[in-house]
């Protein structure tokens, strides 16, 4: 049980370096740690969001529920970085990418096990939860 005065800062565990500690979407990290990648949907108007949002900008409601990302999306584009920003040097080289699931898109990283030479715009990929070498959590794209 959280004690009075405890700060829920689970978002600091997202990504190689997190720049956010506290968010109303902190449960995203709990879902990741249980192996699920989730977006949010508005209970009032049905709009779906990735990245997840705590608030719906369409109907200005804050009554949201989580849904799990399943199936595959199409690879919109990708790039392999050979030079990294401060804090990410140990990860080089790595690929960032965008997947299109139709009603939403997901920005993230390609799994390290995927050879960038095998990537092609338009190919199907799936989104999976991932543990980084430094113990942080993120999600990555694997060939679907």
């Amino acid at each position: 049980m959280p004690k009075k005065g405890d700060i829920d800062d689970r978002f600091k565990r997202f990504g190689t370096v997190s720049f956010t500690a506290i968010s109303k979407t902190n449960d995203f990290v709990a879902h990741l740690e249980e192996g699920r990648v989730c977006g949010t949907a508005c209970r009032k108007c049905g709009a779906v969001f990735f990245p997840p949002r705590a608030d719906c900008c369409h109907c200005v409601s804050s009554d949201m529920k989580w849904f799990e990302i399943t199936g595959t999306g199409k690879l919109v584009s990708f790039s392999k970085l050979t030079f990294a920003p401060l804090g990410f040097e140990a990860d080089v080289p790595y690929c960032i990418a965008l997947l299109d699931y139709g009603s939403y898109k997901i920005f993230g990283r390609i799994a390290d096990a995927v050879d960038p030479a095998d990537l092609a715009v338009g190919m199907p990929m799936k989104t999976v939860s991932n543990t980084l070498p430094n113990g942080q959590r993120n999600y990555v794209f694997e060939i679907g």
Partner: protein
Amino acid sequence: MRGGRMSRIAIIAVGQSPFVRQYPGSIRELAFEAFRDCLHETPLTRKDIDASIVCSAPEYDRQRSPAGVIAEYLGLNPQAAFYVESLCSSGTTGLRLAYALVKAGLHDVVAVIGFQKMSEISSSESQERMGRGADIQWESPFGTMMPAYYAMHAQAHMAAYGTTLDDLARIRVKAATYGQINPKAVYRKPVTSDMFADPEHIMARTVSTPLRVGDCCANADGSACLIVASEEKARALCGKPVWILGLGSATASVNLSGRDSLTGLSAARQAAQQAYAMAGVGPSDIDVAGVHDCFTIAELMACEDLGFAEPGKGRELIASRDTYREGRIPVNVDGGLLSKGHPIGATGGSLVRTIVLQLRQEAGEMQVDSPEIGLVHNIGGVGLYGNVAILGRS
């Protein structure tokens, strides 16, 4: 007449510091360089300026609220001073604000001063800062940086239209053609296609696939200054006013997941439509353009987003050499950000300055033949903010 719907607004003076790798002074001294350059070309004095707008992106230096110290250093107290920021498009956001202040009749003569001293931090720190101009909650934790985001656009453009690395190299070669003759450019050396073909050459070294070192602009320290005035003041203070005919400003989602396509920038397209409509002109009326070529792919997309080429046909426009000084639509004949350098907060003002000098026929070796209408395209973030300005000689 003060303000009013029918009055016109002009740019009556422009100035710029040389863009350099490491400016040997503080930010206020850097801002002064552009201000002095600006005042030296007009009978106007600092007492004629009744407001200042300072433009930069935060966290490259330690000064909070830089409008205060810069207004003081330029001798612009007690006049009103404002600070505006929209990343790399801060300078043209400042121009839009100056236009609005003068149009509304609140001020008559406004100085727009953009600056950035990027050399105070390392290149990897700078990439981290720039990466945080994107979505810090959902994108930055993956290790993002500006070259990688634009590289994703290049990859998408190549997949959709068959654009090649050679097409991108042609843009860099053109930029360097004019960087060599721009005395204020940071990169004054020639660049050839042979350099990109040689895997050992630094220009060909990969930064973020498919972009190479030669596809990326250089960080620089620099400042730029524009003086914006009412029609009455413009006629009294300036022999060659350049008129603001059209302005457009739009935004797109920060996170790439909110974009419909990565083959162009929707904020640029929408800003261009607004500016063309306000000016009552179209792409074929533009005689000279300055576009935000932070990367080679950015110039290619700009040519398509502005309507100089159909989507996917940008590569043909580049190959035809129609974007050279003697071509149908000269683009970035001052070296562009690629060779001139890209000191974030100064870039918008520098783009505007180039087009103002062209319209006044004062661009020296870079001068295109008798331009009447010019266009400025300035982007903040990865297509997050888009500003377009159309300027005219009459």
